[in-house]
């Protein structure tokens, strides 16, 4: 066994410095500042790593609800905070930078889905279904749901599940009490629930009118965009943690960050983080301005999920390498980020899934349409 206390003592000054810093993308952003403050106070990765139990969870969730952040994507008239789409993605990026282990992203997504369909958005933790391209649920004439959805995030903690289901030719959004669903629990690499949820025979609490221009595909694209933002935040965090650690950890009588091999690895990590920041920022902006889920949104979603998924794999490997053994311990915070990066890659379609879809789209449009597709905006 390593001496955990000694290890943590050795790396804590770096962590402290990171803790004090602000997530700072668009300067003077009140929402980003407020979000950062809540996570600094109540969701500090080292504190959570050291915590003997889950007692940090309730105060964190309360603070998030009180601040309106859990309802950022819900308009005022449906019970929400009415922040913009881009604000919501900012919040999610910050949450990724703290490896936030509560269903904030899923609740935002559920709020977005419900309010798109004009349903009142309840308080409390929520999740969504389905979460994979190609899966669908149906709502029968008798008012009961049928079907199952796999890899549903935080199905164990959510009070409600916002689902999109097919009723005849059209799509409806429904609100389901999680307790009434059949759940086969599964876990992500970060130990968060990714469960299979069975909806057969369940009568939803609310059902919307048929919604135009919204289907399972919209939800999967929005979910992929959410994970892209979280991954970008987590990549920024592991870059910062790795740079700080490399300045402090001494080997062969100098900080390891003075070795060129280490510098070049971290420069590559910087590049991966940069790609993630650029791709997720562009995606958020595109969704924020788009009317629906058109080809341009598809290109942005697919590109971001593919490229940031790749960055997650590359970036996590480099961050671990820079940390040596300490980064491989349960006591260190690095795994809070890397395990989430690995698992977020798979949510709402992996790189491979999206790449096949994007490749098929490009091929069907033909060689001469490739450049015009890319060279827009």
């Amino acid at each position, binding site marked *: 066994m390593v001496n955990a206390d000694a290890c943590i003592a050795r790396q804590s000054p770096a962590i402290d410095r*990171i803790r004090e*810093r*602000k997530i*700072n*993308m*668009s300067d003077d952003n009140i929402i980003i500042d407020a979000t950062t403050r809540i996570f600094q106070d109540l969701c500090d990765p080292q504190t959570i790593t050291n915590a003997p139990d889950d007692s940090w969870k309730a105060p964190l969730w309360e603070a998030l609800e009180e601040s309106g952040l859990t309802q950022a994507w819900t308009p005022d008239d449906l019970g929400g905070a009415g922040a913009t789409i881009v604000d919501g993605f900012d919040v999610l990026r910050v949450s990724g*930078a703290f490896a936030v282990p509560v269903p904030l992203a899923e609740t935002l997504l559920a709020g977005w889905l419900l309010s798109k369909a004009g349903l009142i958005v309840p308080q409390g933790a929520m999740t969504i279904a389905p979460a994979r391209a190609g899966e669908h649920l149906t709502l029968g004439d008798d008012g009961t749901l049928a079907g199952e959805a796999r890899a549903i995030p935080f199905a164990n903690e959510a009070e409600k599940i916002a689902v999109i289901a097919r009723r005849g030719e059209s799509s409806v959004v429904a609100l389901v009490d999680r307790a009434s669903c059949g759940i086969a629990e599964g876990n992500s690499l970060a130990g968060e629930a990714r469960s299979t949820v069975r909806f057969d025979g369940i009568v939803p609490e609310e059902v919307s009118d048929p919604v135009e221009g919204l289907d399972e595909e919209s939800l999967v694209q929005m979910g992929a965009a959410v994970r892209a933002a979280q991954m970008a935040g987590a990549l*920024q*965090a592991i870059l*910062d943690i790795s*740079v*700080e650690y*490399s*300045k402090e950890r001494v080997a062969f009588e100098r900080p390891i*960050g*003075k070795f*060129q091999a*280490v*510098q*070049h690895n*971290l*420069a*590559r990590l*910087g*590049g991966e*983080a*940069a*790609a993630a*920041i*650029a*791709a997720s*920022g*562009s995606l958020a902006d*595109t969704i924020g301005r788009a009317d629906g889920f058109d080809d341009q949104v598809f290109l*942005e979603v*697919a*590109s*971001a999920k*593919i*490229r940031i998924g*790749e960055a997650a794999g590359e970036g996590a490997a480099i961050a671990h390498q820079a940390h040596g053994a300490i980064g491989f311990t349960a006591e260190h915070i690095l795994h809070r980020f890397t395990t989430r990066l690995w698992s977020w890659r798979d949510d709402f379609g992996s790189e*491979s899934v*999206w*790449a*096949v*879809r*994007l*490749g*098929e789209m*490009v*091929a*069907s449009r*033909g*060689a001469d349409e*490739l*450049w015009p*597709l*890319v*060279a827009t*905006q």
Partner: protein
Amino acid sequence: MSSAIQFDPIRLPPEAEALRVEVRAFLREEIDAGTFDPVTAPYREGFNPEFSRRVGDKGWIGLTWPKKYGGQERSFLERYVVTEEFRAVTAPTRVHFTADRQSGPVLIKYAPEHIKMDILPRITRGECCFCIGMSEPGSGSDLFAASTRATKSDGGWLINGAKVWTSSAHVADYMIGLFRTSASTEENRRHGLTSFLVDMKNTPGITVNPINHMTGFHEFNEVVFEDAFVPDDNVLGEIDSAWKQATSELAYERSGPERFLETIYILTELVRTIGDKPDKREAEGIGRLVAQLHTLRRMSVSVNGMLQAGKEPTLEGSIVKDMGTQWEQKLPQRARELSAFVDENIGNRANFDELLRFATMIAPKLTIQGGTTEVLRGIIARGLGLR
């Protein structure tokens, strides 16, 4: 977070998109008229004075420069669109590109007025080709080891020594070169170099010797100086202090679309070769490449937008060049893998194979020219606070 890497989601303004339409129409006409063929252009020389003159007539060289020097005072984002559209079809821009990107802006900043009034309008008309004289046999990545001397003489300077790898020196009208005017000092090893404008066509004592690429191409050269006289007016900036002048232009030079589009033709032709019914492996491969390209372009547009807004994204610019050149270097290999099972008799297969051979051959240079990968990563590491 702290790393402060920033990529604002910059969008091209409507005037840039309007310009794109014009540029595409112009290029279409040139291609139809037989000026160049995108499918063979990669292994042609790319030196076409008539074409450059027509580009100049359009006002697309020196687009961002002051009007009094022949420019249009338009934005960097408009220039971005012109550059990327030209690159996407491998248009022959060798005459004007270096002057447009680098040399013109240096002159605007450091040359005396009468030189600006003389040379800049000629650049914008597409009549003036520049080369860059930095590297020497004993000085590559370590630019500050340059030893080619400029010694003070009556009314000017006498240059002695040699530059190497000087692209286009054999066709260039001018060189902007870095020469040693004093020894470096204990405190500052970068001290002692001065930037000069050299007239390549009318200066006795300059010999240009071709050096062929491994592809057989003649693009770069050795340039030998023997008592070549350069007048005092041609000193660009402060004597002995050229090192101070380099930094701010770097972001422009590093983040342009030319940093990831040099082998783009191979992706276009790969899509054509594979056709509209790719299998899963081919589709995945194309999808990843397009996602990577799209992301690079977003990064590059973002850096250029931040520059336009008066920010100094030096770190971001170096990242774009490092990642862009890595990508374009690997592209031929990926295309080779993905095309492995395509029928050899299919439509453009012969073209594709020829382009692939060429792209494979030129790939090594992509991460060397304009600053090596290792040098860039050193700069990025400094930006991250590690040096």
